[in-house]
Every structure is written in C-alpha cells, then in structure tokens.
C-alpha cells in the first residue's frame, strides 16, 4: 500500500498536500511508522510462536540434558555431561545412528529419483496431462500416520498384497518380526509418502526451464538421455538442492508417524530412527535426561548438516 503522509516540501512551490513521492524526506520505498515500536508489534505474533514452540522447548531440552531426573519428575540431579557420554558410548545408540543414516540415504535418494523420473515423464505427456499430474500429487494430501496405516495394510501379514507379491518370488515377508523386512517396509512407505511433494517441485522446476534452451539442446544433442544429464538436470539443480534439504529433514524427523504405525509402538528388536529413539527413551523408558541429551545431539547434527549442505552444494548449483 502507498503511504499517505504530508509532503515534506520537495514538490516545489506547492501548498501542503498528501504526496506519494516525498514522504518525510524519503521516497515511497520506505514506509515510516508513527511509533518506532509499531514494526516490533507487527512481528510479535510470529516471534512469540517461535519463542514458545521452538526456543523454549529447545532451551528446556538443553537444560534437562545435564540433569538426571527421577521417573516421576519429583527430583533432579545435576550430572554434567554424563548423559552425553552415556549416549555416545552406548552401542545401541551407535546401531540406531547407523540405521538412521542408511534409512535417510535410501529414503532421500529413492524419493528424489523416482519423483524426478515421474516429473520428467509427466512433463512430456501431451494428452490428459493434468489428470495424470493430479493423480500423482494425490498422496501429498495423505497425513503421515494415515500413509503408515495404508502402508501397513499393503504389507499386512495376512491380507497385504505386497506380502503376497513378494511371496511369489519366495520372499516370506515378516513385518515387525524380521529386521530387514521391517526396514524395507519403512523405507517403501516413507518414499511413497514423499514422492508427491518432490514431484510437484520437480515438475514446476522443469516447466521453468526455457523452452528454447531445450530446443537448442535438441539440435545440439541427439541422445535424450545425454541431453537430460547435461542440460535439464543442471538447470534443475536449484530445485534439487532445495528438495535435498527438505528430504533429509523429512527422513530424519517427519517419518516418525510412519515408523510408529509400522512398529505399532512395540519396537522390540526392530529398527528405529534417532528421533524415534528419543521418544522411546523419554516417554517409554522415562529417561528424560538421556532423551534430552539425544535431542541436543540431533539439533547439533542438523545444524552442522545444514551448514555443510549450503557450503558444499550451493557453490556448485547454478541459480539463474
């Protein structure tokens, strides 16, 4: 909106008037407020949400990571870095971290790769293209626990079509019992849930590539495969980089619901991710101190990961 303030007098020789150009010695680009507290007041709702739902719990987690709390929360003892050393030296923690790494790599890779493949193919569909695209985006509207439930049905021991399908090849899937089978189901469901998001971004990225650049490439390069890797893919890199961060975060944190449904909250010897372990130790094991220490480690890890991603990858990404 344009500011409506009295002209500062730069409109030569004219009577006092409301002016869009000369507002209090500044041009109209900068809107001046009557009180210097006004802009802060506008920011307050957003800032308070960040403070209440992010900063405060984070600070609380950092605090309790240094304490040993009794299971009922009546007393707590300061134990310094004990929670951290316990966590880092535990072989169980190492195992879960390892699984989380593998899980994240698999989920990120396959959800990006499949979404890219689908987007490239959908971009070339001429007839009924929008129907096709809408169908591919549908899963996006499914909430993670619901996706987990649908996934569970597909992988069900007795009625799951995917289990039956695997049986055709002599693979007796035992979700929730066999470590590998359970991990497999988790990865498949997580990838399936994430593909639509990536698909939407990749598709809009593809449509953002100049048509004449693609035509120039058509003339310069016969092989569609080569053309994709030398022209289309590099030009999609900004989208891909953004999605990489989104997907790593997704695999780390947002798969919680899916994992929970697959495990039916009974992990036993089954694989869990670090985030799920935080929940297990804190709320099932009542070890709030250890759980907090793990969250703090996760926070640090994500922080470092983000810096590495921006430093290393952004340098090689072309932003047009």
């Amino acid at each position, binding site marked *: 909106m344009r500011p409506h303030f009295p002209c500062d007098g730069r409109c030569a020789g004219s009577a006092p008037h409301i002016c869009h150009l000369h507002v209090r010695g500044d041009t109209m680009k900068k809107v001046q407020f009557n009180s210097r507290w006004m802009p802060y007041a506008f920011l307050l709702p957003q800032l308070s949400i960040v403070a209440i739902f992010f900063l405060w719990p984070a600070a609380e987690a950092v605090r309790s990571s240094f304490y040993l709390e009794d299971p009922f929360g009546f007393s707590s003892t300061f134990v310094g870095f004990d929670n951290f050393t316990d966590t880092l030296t535990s072989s169980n923690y190492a195992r879960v971290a390892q699984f989380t790494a593998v899980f994240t790599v698999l989920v990120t890779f396959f959800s990006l790769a499949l979404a890219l493949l689908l987007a490239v193919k959908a971009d070339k569909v001429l007839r009924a293209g929008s129907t096709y695209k809408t169908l591919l985006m549908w899963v996006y509207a499914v909430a993670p626990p619901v996706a987990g439930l649908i996934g569970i049905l597909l992988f069900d021991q007795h009625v799951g079509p995917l289990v039956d399908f695997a049986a055709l090849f002599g693979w007796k899937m035992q979700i929730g019992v066999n470590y590998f089978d359970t991990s497999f189901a988790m990865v498949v469901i997580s990838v399936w849930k994430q593909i639509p998001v990536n698909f939407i971004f990749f598709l809009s990225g593809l449509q953002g590539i100049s048509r004449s650049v693609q035509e*120039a490439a058509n*003339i*310069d390069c*016969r092989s569609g495969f080569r053309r994709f890797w030398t022209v289309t893919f590099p030009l999609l890199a900004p989208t891909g980089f953004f999605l990489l961060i989104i997907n790593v975060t997704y695999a780390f944190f947002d798969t919680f619901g899916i994992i929970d449904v697959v495990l039916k909250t009974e992990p036993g010897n089954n694989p869990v991710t670090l985030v799920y372990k935080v929940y297990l130790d804190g709320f099932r094991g009542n070890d709030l101190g250890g759980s907090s220490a793990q969250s703090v480690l996760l926070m640090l890890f994500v922080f470092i990961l983000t810096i590495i991603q921006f430093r290393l990858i952004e340098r090689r990404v*072309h932003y047009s």
Partner: protein
Amino acid sequence: MSNITLDQVRKVYAGNVEAVKGVSIDIADGEFIVLVGPSGCGKSTLLRMIAGLEDISSGEISIGDRVVNKVDPADRDIAMVFQNYALYPHMSVYKNLAYGLTNRGMPKSEIDRRVKEAADILEIGDYLDRKPRALSGGQRQRVAMGRAIVREPAAFLFDEPLSNLDAKLRVQMRVEIKRLQKELGTTSVYVTHDQLEAMTLADRLVVLNGGNIEQIGAPIAVYDKPASTFVASFIGSPAMNLIETVSDAGGLKAKAGTGLQGGNPGGLQACTVGIRPEHLQVVEAGTPVGDGLTLTVKVNVLEPVGAESYIYGTIDGGGAPVVIRIESHQTYDINAILTLHAAAKDVHYFDAETGRRIES
C-alpha cells in the same frame, strides 16, 4: 550440396487451425532467404519445421537432397539462432560453443580449433570462460552466432535473432550477419517481421501472409513490383500509398475525395493505384496530367527526418491518406494544397477485389 526444398509444406494445429498452407520454396546452395511477414503469418512455424522442432502436417522438406520429414533435429545438419539466444545458462561460453560438437564425438583438438576460430571471427575470445549471465545482450547474440558457426552446418536458421537488441546494435549485427554469411557461404533461412532487415539481408525475400506466400523475389524486385497490395504496404518504409479508384470517361478518379486524376492505360473498371512516397513530385498547379497521375493533396503534417522529409497529407476533398517524400529542408505550410505528379512508369495498379497486381 546443401540446398533446401520445401514442397507443399502444410502445418495444421489441433482444432484445424492451419498455420502454413501449402508453401513451396526452392532455396539454392549458399543462398540467404528471408521469410518476412506480420506476426501470425506462419514464418516462424515454417522455420521450426525446417529445424525439426515442429512436425510437418503434410508436404516434404529436403535438405541437400535428403527428405528430412522424419529426421531428428540433431541429424538434420542445421544450426539455429534463437530470438532469446537460448544459451545454456549453466555452461561457460566455451562450453556453449563446444556442446554440439562434443555430442557429435568430435576430437578435442578439432573442437578447440573451431571454437577458437569462431571466437576470433566474432571477437568473443575474451569471454570464453564467462557464463552467459555475465554477458551483455550483444555479446550473448555473438555467442549464439558462434554456436551456429562452429557446427559448420549445411544451413543456418535464424529466428528473429536481432529483435532483442537495441536499435544501434541491431544495425551493427545486421551488417555483420550479412558479411559472415557471404564469407562462409552457408545456406541461410532468416525469419523477421522487420521489412528493413528483410530488404538488407536477403538474396531473396519470401513475403508471407496468413500462411500463404504472397511473393518470392530479390528484395529490389519485390520493392519495384509488389505482387499485391499486401506486399506493397508491407515492404518499404514509409509504405506505398494505396488509393482506391473508379474509372469514368476521363480516366481514373479517386473513390473518395476529388484530388486524383489519371489516365486509364489498361482500361480498368475499378482498381487500387499504388505510388511510392519518393515517386510523387510537387509540381505547379495546372500542369498537364500527361500519362501519369496527378494528385491534389492537403498537407497535414510535415516530418523532417534529417536526410529527407515526409509530408503526411490527405487527398483533397476528404480522400485517402498520402505520404510524399521531399528533399530535406524544404518546407510547406500546414493545410496548403499541393499538386503532385507521378510518372506512368511509377504507378502500380492492383485489382480492387483481390489486391493482386495488374500488369499494364
């Protein structure tokens, strides 16, 4: 041999929209052909069909005696320069030039030689390591040209390559394109809506209108003998004066207004006469008509452009608008009535119904 032949080429889009309606052109080896016409006349579609970027609905296109209807764009041995240059934004200038060669499996040393040579010709040697976004419009244009040159193709296709440049650069690049084409002797097809560009570049002009060819010919031949009122009004600036006339016992009369008198050499019923602005001479009132045309015109606007001036007027008695070229520094009063004469050889006659030229 890299002649290009178009035989009854048609393009029909979905919904039965016919963009190109049976066009046939024979382009000789080394010839510079310019497709010119207003937007929507099908000139770009035609070029894109030669390039292989659009399917051919019917008819045949051959490049160097090979029918290319079903040949992949990369295998047609053509290079195209796009209106917005279409440079690969993520590649350096060097890689932009080399890309088409690398993909064809050319040895590195040969690629390097060709890129350096093209860079020398186009004076872009200093920017080879830069990305396109670090270049000015004119430099990008040169890189786009370079990408075509290094290929040493059978034909260059230009799709309005100068329309994104400012006026000064456009003239400069126009001269350069012409010089390069003559030097390399590569068959070229050039699309433009700018009649001046078309006139100056072409060995032969192809004037298109509504998917049909209006006229093919050397620029000066088209200028001297436009085949229709459309060509007459499109080629030449300011455009040819076109005045609708009717005939009576005394010869031709303007359909509207009173200020036109002329002989009727062909014994025509009704026709449109055309006179170029430079062929109208200001004469003393009462000069005998002779075998040409005499107009009386009311001056509306005088427009000096430096080397010459133009009078914008209307035929006396409320008739058609008329433009007259006069020598610079000559002045006439606004609203003055001038008597103008055009020699018989400079008057063009067009059919009143079809607009086609009538040879007299």
